[in-house]
């Protein structure tokens, strides 16, 4: 099957579809629930509060340093659940595949999806495969939806933010956005920027079970750290003050952004979390985050303040103040 390409008939629902599902998806994502091949997954949950999220992935290119669209699709939904304080349990997987995609590529992605799911301790319990004509989509689009159980006592919400709370970011920002941009545009940075794409439910679990009073969390994906902070300020009605010198940015990402006229604070992340933590617990929470492989570069970058209601203000390295707004439009590279 490995030399073949995806044909429209692979999505027609007949024998070819069944073969594809069994030989690729059951092989790499297999679990008893999926293997029942029912019209819907039957799952038992013993929780009174569920978090439920969905996300679609259209990354170009589908492989980039640090990950691929499959890994991204699992991490994206797992992290959306994790920042709500949920323990991710089950995912669904919807694939829209362009006719002509090598089956080998699909298998590579299925393997990546399977491995990421194992690492994140989630099961993929339902799926769907559609094939569209060549040119109707770009190689492959993936949707994942997921549910997770939320402990009843946990209340994660911007409403709980209060002046004095500390803001922690779990690692250097902008790596994913720059890695994908460089891979897509063939920008030969050496070494190439590597995406931070990672499932962070373990990391979050470590912080929460460590006892830190976490008020709110956000995964700063599209729009970057600046947009995530601006949303938190707006939703809490409080001000946020961050210090430029404390915001971690890898030197290579900083240099690449400078060359292209882009701002790392607005570049996407796929393996970072912004934590808003009670001030007295901030040090402990930071140490807990830094224990995780994806949180080694975590830093306290600022605090929630009573002034500047609804706004984010950054103290620059020069000691001046700069407001950080939500991303207005796609970041576009400048001319010179």
């Amino acid at each position: 099957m490995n030399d073949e390409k995806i044909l429209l008939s692979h999505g027609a629902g007949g024998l070819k579809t069944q073969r594809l599902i069994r030989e690729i998806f059951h092989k790499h994502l297999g679990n008893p629930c999926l293997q029942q091949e029912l019209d819907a997954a039957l799952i038992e949950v013993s929780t009174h509060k569920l978090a439920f999220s969905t996300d679609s992935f259209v990354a170009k290119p589908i492989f980039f340093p640090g990950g691929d669209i499959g890994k991204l699709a699992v991490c994206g939904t797992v992290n959306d659940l994790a920042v709500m304080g949920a323990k991710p349990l089950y995912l669904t997987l919807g694939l829209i595949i362009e006719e002509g995609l090598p089956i080998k590529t699909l298998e590579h992605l299925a393997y990546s999806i399977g491995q990421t799911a194992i690492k994140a301790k989630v099961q993929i319990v339902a799926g769907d495969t559609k094939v569209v004509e060549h040119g109707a989509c770009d190689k492959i689009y993936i949707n994942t939806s997921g549910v997770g159980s939320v402990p009843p006592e946990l209340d994660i919400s911007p409403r709980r933010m209060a002046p004095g709370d500390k803001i922690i970011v779990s690692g250097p920002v902008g790596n994913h956005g720059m890695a994908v941009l460089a891979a897509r545009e063939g920008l030969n940075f050496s070494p190439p920027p590597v995406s931070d794409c990672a499932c962070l439910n373990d990391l979050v679990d470590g912080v929460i079970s460590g006892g830190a009073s976490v008020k709110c969390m956000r995964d700063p994906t599209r729009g970057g750290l600046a947009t995530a902070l601006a949303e938190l300020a707006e939703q809490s009605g409080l001000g946020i003050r961050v210090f430029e010198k404390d915001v971690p940015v890898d030197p290579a990402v900083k240099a690449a952004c400078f060359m292209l006229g882009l701002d790392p604070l607005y570049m996407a992340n796929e393996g970072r979390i912004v934590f808003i933590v009670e001030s007295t617990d901030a040090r402990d929470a930071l140490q807990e985050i830094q224990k995780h492989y994806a949180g080694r570069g975590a830093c306290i970058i600022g605090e929630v303040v009573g002034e500047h209601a609804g706004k984010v203000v950054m103290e620059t390295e020069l000691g001046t103040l700069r407001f950080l707004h939500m991303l207005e439009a796609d970041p576009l590279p400048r001319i010179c």
Partner: protein
Amino acid sequence: MLKPRISEATVLDSLKKMDIGKTVRIMEVCGTHTRAIAKSGIKQLLPPCIELISGPGCPVCVTHQQDIEKVLQLALEPRVTIATFGDMMKVPGSTGSLREIRAGGADIRVVYSPIDAVSIARQNPDREVVFLAVGFETTAPAVAAAVLQAVQSNAKNFSILCMLKLIIPAMAALLNDPEIKADGFLCPGHVSAIIGTEPYSFIPEKYGKGCVVSGFEPEDILESIHLLAKQIKKEEYKVENQYTRGVRKEGNRTALALMEKFFEPHSVLWRGLGPIEKSGLKLKPHFAKYDAKEKFGISEVEAKPSRAECICDQILKGKKRPDQCPLFGRSCDPDSPQGPCMVSSEGTCAAEFYNA
């Protein structure tokens, strides 16, 4: 990344102690400086006697509406693929912007280097690929290199719509305008890396104004302002090079030779500044087949005037600030720009919008 030579604390301390005796106006003529000044909040630190004003430094912003209309006309040609730097996508014209035209089905691609446009031409032999050559002396050598590659690979389906401009004639035009009162200039580091420092010498010699070629880190800009303030205080005007780690006196001879081989200066229209003699570059007649204007017989298009309230032309000359525009932040923002200064992240209005 290379760092500037001295710390900002030393510079600021010295600037604050300096008694210049009058308000000095320093103009930057480089979009990257405009953006860096806005982003770092340098204006908040300067003593009140030093006023920074933005000049015509953003290549997208100074591209005349007539040229924008030509771009849009070309983009609507069914056989044409447009390759462009990202900044051009949102500039509004009478039939929309490139972004809107692309949503309507036109083939418009954002590239990061002019060379990428030649690759697109090679990969799509049945398409006519036109690169929108917008920029100053920094971009011109890269465009020349792309044309050279097209010549060498005989890419017959590649051409450029040349809207390249030269900063020195624009600075001369600013200096000849009695309404523009700049006491000194922060000269563009990237452009100077190509042209060197010599071409600015007419500014102190003929006009008695200071010039400092500056780098782009906040500390670079502060040091350059300090150097200019010292020139103005002593009334000893000269061309100084603060950006020694990037700029040599003679510039980049290889890049200059490449430009010289492919381009010749001609008079062009600048938004805000009007026609300026020998301030643009066009392909030499020998390379006319790579000139999209010749190839597609593009005629002069009458530009639809921008919204009457838009004061981009005044902003480009440093006569007005963005906050003096009635549209700024109301009906004009980076997502729906009414004028060019709001389009590029280097435009004065966008820099102010994002960072103020």
